């Protein structure tokens, strides 16, 4: 089995990462009852004999001794990382996996990218190499960062290039948190658009997520829980927003939101980690969902957001899970895939669901969805037999859909509004290596991407026609 390394950058990245490790441990603890270090565990954790000095203590088989996360934690402030190291997850990490600074990036992409990028390149590379050495078959780097700030956005995208050069065979999946419209960081449009160019060029897959959508989902769940209608039947800790709870007394405001993202990553990798009748490895994601190298932005949705206590679900409720996955309300980015054009769609199912359930729902939903003319049956499916903790089943839908375009256009608008006034520009241009062309190039890169989506959208209303084929003489 293969391994993945999580690279969490910046405040947001580290907070989400922290949630992820918490959930991952919980999930494996639920599945792995015997305490044996198995293949599934090995994909995100090393088993280390702590008595051995240095890091020669990796154990490949047998009892679990001490699990270490396959992770690299990077932040240019100390706060969040320190908090993690003092928290309940402290044993999962060791100091060799951390890179911190004290100055922070000041919400400036250029500081993160150019200044810290070159300053920490060697150090980062060394940590990455180390983490890679611990894997016998490294398949994927998951980068978690935000787009609006300075460190996650700037240094996070800098990292992408470093990874591409150093590990060209290893996939780079990026989970990017996009700023909402009323973001409190004034320069976030600049940072995002500069980061977008890097994502365009150096990522294999990007899972864009925006804070607003996460917030809306949480509000909705809260509403449902508090309305009392469902309250009595909801299983404790079955919420997609629940954290482990065992470690913490009170949740912080962002914790619920971060948990959703952490769940996304768990579900994304579950079919690669656990058994199932239709496996889906990580390398199948980009193979199936990325028809053209640039169009690698995947809109994701997780259902159900909660599960009723009654585990023996009748088919209708199972079908509801599939319907929800395509609704606007369940997307992790503000987008409406149903009214946009699908290039490709993956349904990753976990738990007690069979192929016939999957086929039935595809047939049922297909008429209401629009697919690009050359990919009318653009479905990728997987069945993993291990459900998420506390659930009987779950679905992660990944869509390569033109519905991401509005987010990008809005971003560009906000950028243009600032850029026309040249507001705050000097903060960037004073950094060595930054020039105005960086902005124009980033803008045209984004425009080109939007243009590609436009062209695809233009085909939406056209009738689907077969193209003339090779003509056989006889």
């Amino acid at each position: 089995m293969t391994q993945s390394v999580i690279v969490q950058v910046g405040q947001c990245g580290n907070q989400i990462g922290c949630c992820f490790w918490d959930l991952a441990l919980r999930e494996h603890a639920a599945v792995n009852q015997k305490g044996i270090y198995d293949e599934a565990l090995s994909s995100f954790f090393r088993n280390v004999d702590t008595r051995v000095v240095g890091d020669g203590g990796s154990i490949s088989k047998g009892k679990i001794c001490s699990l270490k996360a396959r992770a690299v934690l990077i932040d240019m402030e100390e706060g969040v990382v320190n908090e993690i190291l003092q928290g309940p997850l402290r044993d999962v990490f060791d100091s060799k996996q951390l890179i911190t600074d004290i100055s922070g990036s000041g919400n400036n992409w250029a500081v993160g990218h150019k200044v810290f990028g070159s300053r920490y390149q060697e150090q980062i590379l060394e940590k990455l190499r180390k983490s890679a050495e611990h894997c016998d078959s490294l398949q994927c780097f998951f980068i978690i960062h935000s787009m609006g700030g300075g460190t996650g956005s700037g240094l996070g995208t800098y990292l992408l290039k470093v990874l591409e050069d150093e590990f060209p065979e290893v996939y780079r999946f990026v989970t990017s948190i996009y700023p909402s419209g009323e973001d409190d960081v004034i320069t976030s449009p600049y940072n995002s658009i500069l980061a977008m160019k890097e994502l365009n060029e150096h990522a294999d897959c990007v899972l864009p997520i925006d804070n607003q959508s996460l917030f809306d989902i949480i509000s909705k769940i809260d509403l449902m829980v508090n309305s009392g209608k469902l309250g009595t039947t909801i299983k404790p800790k079955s919420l997609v927003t629940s954290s482990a709870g065992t470690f913490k007394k009170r949740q912080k405001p962002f914790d619920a939101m971060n948990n959703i993202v952490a769940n996304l990553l768990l579900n994304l990798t579950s079919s690669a980690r656990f058994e199932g009748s239709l496996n889906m490895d990580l390398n199948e994601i980009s193979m199936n969902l990325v028809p053209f190298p640039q169009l690698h932005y995947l809109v994701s949705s997780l259902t159900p957001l909660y599960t009723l206590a009654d585990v023996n679900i009748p088919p209708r409720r199972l079908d509801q899970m599939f319907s929800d996955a395509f609704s606007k309300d369940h997307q992790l980015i503000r987008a409406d895939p149903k009214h946009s054009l699908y290039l490709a769609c993956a349904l990753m199912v976990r738990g007690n669901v069979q192929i016939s359930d999957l086929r039935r729902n595809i047939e049922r939903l297909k008429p209401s969805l629009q697919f690009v003319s050359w990919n009318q049956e653009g479905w990728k499916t997987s069945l993993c037999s291990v459900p998420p903790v506390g659930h009987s089943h779950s679905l992660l839908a990944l869509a390569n859909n033109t519905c991401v375009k509005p987010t990008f256009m809005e971003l560009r608008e906000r950028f243009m509004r600032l850029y026309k006034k040249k507001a705050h520009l000097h903060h960037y241009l004073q950094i060595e290596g930054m020039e105005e062309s960086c902005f124009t190039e980033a803008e045209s890169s984004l425009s080109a991407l939007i243009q590609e989506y436009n062209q695809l959208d233009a085909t939406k209303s056209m009738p689907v026609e077969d193209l003339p084929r090779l003509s056989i003489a006889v």
Partner: protein
Amino acid sequence: MSIVTVQLGQCGNQIGFEVFDALFRDSHCPQGLCSKRENEAYQASCKERFFSEEENGVPIARAVLVDMEPKVINQTLSKAAQSGRWKYGQHSCFCQKQGSGNNWAYGYSVHGPRHEESIMNLIQKEVEKCDSLSGFFIIMSMAGGTGSGLGAFVTQNLQDQYSHSLKMNQIIWPYGTGEIIVQNYNSILTLSHLYRSSDALLVHENDAVHKICAKLMNIKQISFSDINQVLAHQLGSVFQPTYSAEGSFHYRRNPLGDLMENLVPHPEFKMLGVRNIPQMSENSLAYSTFTWAGLLKHLRQMLISNAKMEEGIDWQVRPPVSRLPTLGKMSLNKELHFNTSIANLLILRGKDVHSADLGGFKDPALYTSWLEPVNAFNVWKTQRSFNKYEKSAALVTNSQFLVKPLDKIVGKAWNMFASKAYVHQYTKFGIEEEDFLDSFTLLEQVVASYCNL
């Protein structure tokens, strides 16, 4: 004679297990409805073909398991071991850590050459265990990356190294509504490569088997294991022993060779399908009786109306009155109502099998103009009943049954190819646009040739 099975990829390994289990269970079923002696001979014949004996008496499947990731193989091995009836050889699997990612090119151009030696060594070891090797049975899907890409690579290698041994590829045709997005690309690459290196392509369509599970077997929530069991039943009904000739009580020595000689001598027509009758859940079976006349009447109509199962047969379809050979590609938009055969092999198992009247299958109107029924139709029989069915019939057909699905796959792949979507994923591993074009050309020809019967 023995057959060495090569199970490739998740699909191939899952099906392979069910096939061996079905074969073993049928041959050890005490309810063969025949004499003890005959049962023993049947068992021995089945065993020689598909199992070799280990010292402690547990039969070992003549199989090589290949996958590029370990999960499925581990699962398959332990399932077989748990059955306690038979098992896989201790050193007969090959797996790696990282799969082919649904990329045919990765399976064919990266995994293939990289692991060629190890895989071929495993196969050779299995071959050496056979006193006499009839050929290879290669189970794979054509949609994914390992089964399809590596499968095509391995088949080609078998063709090079064992040129005189027979190669039959059991291919799983993906769901029409898509299970893998690049399935049409992977499929055309697989099919075109196998057309060059394999002797026969035995095709099972997921959609058809799925429907059988739903309609005939009455399964509500259909799992892959259900689907694979139906498939294994169909394969078993073809490859379990039958008498070598009319009136003989020797079992056929080389079913693979005889089947191929009867069905796939023409290089342009290598696609085979299996139809079974009756097929039903064990519960219903207890309340049903059958006559040969009834079974064969239905089976014949299934053949000519291209129905995949007994339910929903179109009884309006009749053989054409006069069959003028046509030239020039027949329009596919025009419904191909009547399914013209090139050749058919009928396999009858069970009570009073000699009394079955086969006249309906010997009608020249069923066949292409250039083959007489005497050349185009064959029947195998045995009195020993199969898998608890007192009487059962299987039909292996080389006919137009697959033209439409094939044409669809080629068409969809062509549409995608015209927009250049996903092509970069293939060129990355050395499969160029030229290779795609070669594949399209070959398969368009196959479609045209089948249309022009």
